[in-house]
C-alpha cells in the first residue's frame, strides 16, 4: 500500500506553484475582478506549455495519456491561488465525456486542440429558477424539418468570454427520466452571451440565450436522450478535480490563519496562544487533511472500477465544499477587522467557497447520490 503522490507528481506541483507565484498568486484572480483577463490567459498558455492540458488525453491526440491523479497537483495549485478559468471544465468534465462517448471526429477535433492548449470549453447547464437535476433542464433541442433547433436560457456559464466552445445539456424529450442530451457548440459567435454580475467577482459568469439556434447532428455527443447518464461520467471527474481545487484553496486558508495567529498580538500574547484561536485553526487543519485524503482517493478511484467509485468522489466533494466554506469564513474571524477588508485575500476565498458550494448540485443532491450508489 502506498497512499501518497509520487515524487514526480510532487515535483510537478513545485513547478506549477513556482509559476503561479511568479504571477503573484491571487493577483491573477484580482485582475479578473478588474476585468483584465490577460494574466489568466498567460497562465493558461504556460500550463499548456508545461503539458498540463494534455495530461489526461490519449497519446494519439497528442496527450500524455496519464490519469486523473496526475492532474491533482495542478488543480490543488490553481485552487491555492484561486485561479479562475476553464481548466477544470475543459479537462475534468469535457475531456472524460468526449473520451468515453465522443465520435472519432469529435475526439480528433476537440482532444487534440485541448491537449495543445488551443481550446477551452465552458459548461452551460444551469437554468434560472431550476436546480441542477433532470427536471431542472428545460432548455430544448427539437428536431424540426431534419434540423436540430435549440431554444432556451442558460445562466451562470463560467468564463463564457474566454471559451472556445460550450458543452450544453439540453432537453430532447419530455420524458423526465430519459430526455436529455449533450451538445457541443463551437460557433460561439451565434450564441447570445451576456455577462452576469457574479457574487465572486473573480469568477466571470454569463447568460446564454439560444433563440432558434440551428445545430447539426454531429454536435450531439453520444446517444440522444442519454445525456444525463453520460454527464454523470464527466461529473465524477469534475467533482474529483473540484475537491482537489478546494483542498488547495483550503490549504492556503489554513496557512494564512496559522501564520497570522503567530504574529498578531493582543493582550500581550500572539493570538495563536489563545485556545479559541488555536483550536479553531486546528479544526480547520484537521478538516483540510481529511479533505485531502478524500480527494486523493477520489482522483485515484475515478480511474478504476471499484464499487465505491461514486460514493468516494461525491463524499470528497461534499466534505470539501462544506469544510472549505467553513474554514474560509473562520479565517476572516481569526484575522479580525483586517480580515474584513478588501485588501487582504480572506474574502476572495469565502467568495470562491460560496461559488462552488452549490455549483452543479447542492450537498443534499450529492449526498443522495452517495447513498444511492452504495445501494442503501
Amino acid at each position, binding site marked *: 500500500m502506498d497512499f501518497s503522490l509520487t515524487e514526480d507528481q510532487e515535483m510537478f506541483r513545485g513547478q506549477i506553484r513556482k509559476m503561479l507565484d511568479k504571477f503573484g498568486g491571487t493577483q491573477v484572480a484580482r485582475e479578473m475582478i478588474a476585468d483584465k483577463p490577460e494574466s489568466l490567459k498567460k497562465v493558461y498558455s504556460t500550463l499548456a506549455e508545461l503539458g498540463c492540458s494534455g495530461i489526461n488525453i490519449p497519446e494519439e491526440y497528442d496527450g500524455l495519456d496519464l490519469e486523473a491523479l496526475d492532474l491533482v497537483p495542478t488543480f490543488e495549485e490553481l485552487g491555492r491561488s484561486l485561479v479562475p478559468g476553464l481548466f477544470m471544465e475543459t479537462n475534468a468534465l469535457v475531456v472524460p465525456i468526449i473520451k468515453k462517448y465522443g465520435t472519432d471526429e469529435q475526439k480528433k477535433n476537440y482532444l487534440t486542440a485541448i491537449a495543445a492548449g488551443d481550446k477551452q470549453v465552458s459548461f452551460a447547464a*444551469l437554468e*434560472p*429558477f*431550476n*436546480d*441542477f*437535476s433532470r*427536471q*431542472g433542464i428545460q432548455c430544448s433541442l427539437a428536431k424540426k424539418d431534419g434540423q436540430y433547433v435549440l431554444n432556451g436560457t442558460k*445562466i*451562470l456559464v463560467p468564463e463564457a468570454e474566454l471559451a472556445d466552445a460550450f458543452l450544453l445539456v439540453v432537453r430532447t424529450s419530455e420524458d423526465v427520466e430519459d430526455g436529455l442530451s449533450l451538445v457541443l457548440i463551437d460557433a460561439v459567435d451565434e450564441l447570445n452571451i451576456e455577462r*452576469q*454580475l*457574479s*457574487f*465572486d*467577482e473573480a469568477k466571470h*459568469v454569463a*447568460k446564454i440565450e439560444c433563440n432558434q439556434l440551428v445545430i447539426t447532428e454531429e454536435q450531439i455527443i453520444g446517444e440522444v436522450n442519454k445525456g444525463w447518464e453520460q454527464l454523470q461520467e464527466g461529473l465524477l471527474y469534475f467533482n474529483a478535480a473540484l475537491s482537489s481545487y478546494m483542498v488547495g484553496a483550503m490549504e492556503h486558508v489554513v496557512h494564512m490563519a496559522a501564520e497570522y495567529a503567530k504574529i498578531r*498580538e*493582543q*493582550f*500581550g*500574547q500572539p493570538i495563536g*496562544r*489563545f485556545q*479559541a*484561536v488555536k483550536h479553531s485553526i486546528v479544526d480547520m487543519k484537521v478538516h483540510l487533511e481529511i479533505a485531502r485524503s478524500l480527494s486523493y482517493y477520489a482522483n485515484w478511484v475515478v480511474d478504476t472500477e471499484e464499487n465505491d467509485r461514486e460514493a468516494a468522489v461525491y463524499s470528497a466533494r461534499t466534505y470539501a465544499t462544506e469544510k472549505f466554506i467553513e474554514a474560509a*469564513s473562520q479565517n*476572516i*474571524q481569526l484575522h*479580525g*477587522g483586517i*480580515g*474584513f*477588508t*478588501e*485588501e487582504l485575500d*480572506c*474574502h476572495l476565498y*469565502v467568495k470562491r467557497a*460560496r*461559488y462552488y*458550494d*452549490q*455549483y*452543479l448540485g*447542492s450537498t*443534499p443532491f450529492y449526498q443522495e447520490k452517495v447513498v444511492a450508489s452504495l445501494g442503501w
Partner: protein
Amino acid sequence: MDFSFTKKEEKFRTELRTWLETNLPEGWLEGKRDLPEDLDEYSAYLRAWQRTLYDGGWAAIAWPKEYGGRDASLMEEIIYHQEMVRVKAPPLINYIGIHMVGPTLIDMGTEEQKEKYLKKILTGEEIWCQGYSEPSAGSDLTALKTRAVKDGDRWLINGQKVWTSFGHVADKCFLLTRTSTVPEKKHRGITVFLIDMDQPGVETLPIIQMDGHKDFNEVYLTDAVATDADIVGQVDSGWHVLIALMLHERTGIGAELFTLEKQFNDTVTLAQQYKVNGQPLIHNPLIRQKMAGFYARVRGSLLNYYRNLTTTVKNGQPGPESSIDKLVVSELNKELSSFAVEIQGHQGLLWDKDAAVDSKWQRLFLASFGQTIGGGTSEVQRNTIGERVLGLPKDMGR
C-alpha cells in the same frame, strides 16, 4: 408576566408612526429608499434627515428635556427602534453623537462642553466619530499607542486610528489617547479628547471592505491639536469615561435584534415565494426543518432580550446577562444570512442587478462577517460573559 404595552407607550408609538408617515423622505415608505452614492450628497441627504428628526423632536428621545430630548423611558426607546426598523428608516448619520457622545457629555462633560456641542449634535450640524481602535489595538484597546503630549498650553496628538466609522463625514472626534506610559495597568494613562476633524493634523482615509462598502476609516494624527478644555473627565482617567459611554449605549442591540427579526421574516417570505423547478422552497423538508430551527433561535434571542430589558427596568441598570445579546445576535445574523443565500441554490451566486430576487441577501451575508468582529469579537464577548456572568478566572493578559 405581561407582554402588553401601556396606553402611554401605545400613544407614543402612534405619535411616532404618524410623524414618520408624514416626514419620511418622499417615496420612502413605498420603497424608494436609495441613498445618494456621492459622498457629499450622501452626507447632505442624511444631515437633512437628521435635521427633520430634530425639528420633529425625534432626534434624541432618551436625552433629558433640558438638553432637547424627551426623557424617554427605556420602553419608549425600544418602541422607537421597532418603528424605525419597521419603516427601514434612513440611517442616523450622527448615531455616535446622539447615542454615545451626547449622553456622555451630559453625564460628565463640563458646562462649556455641553453648551458648545449638544445642540449641534442634535441638529446634525456637527457629526461625530469615535477614535478607538488602532492597528495593534483591536480587541485589546488598552494596547493603544496614540500619544497626546502637553506642549505649552496645548496638547499635540500623534498616532493612527483605524475602523473609525463615519470618520469621512465627521466634524468632531471622541478620541482615546495615551497620556501616560508609566502605570503598571495599561488601562490607566488614557485620556479622552474632543478634537476637530477639520484641522491640518488629521487625515482620513477610507477602508475598502470585503463587501465593497467604505463605512470605516483610517485616521492619521500628526501633531493634531487639542486643549485642556477638550478633555472629557480627567487626564489619565479615560477608561472610566469609556465605560460610562458604553453604558449609555443601552438600546443599540435592541435595534439589531429587531432588524434580525425583520430579516428572518423576509427570509420566510423568500422561501415561500422563491421557486425551484416550479416548487416553492418552503415545500422542501430540509428547508422547513432549518427554518423551524431559525424561528426558535430568533424568537429565543428576542425574548431573552426582553427578559434582560425587564431586569434593566426593574433594577435601573442592565444585569451582566445582557452581555449575551450581542454575541447571540451577531452569530445568528451570520448564519441566517448565509442560509438565505444558500437556499437560492446556484442563483445565489448572482449579484446586484442580476440577483435572482434581491441582492440584499448577498450583501447581508458579506456584511455579517463584520458583525462578529466589530464592537468586540465573539471571542472577546465570550471571555466577558465567562468572567462577568459565570465568574470564571480571567484570561491571559487581562
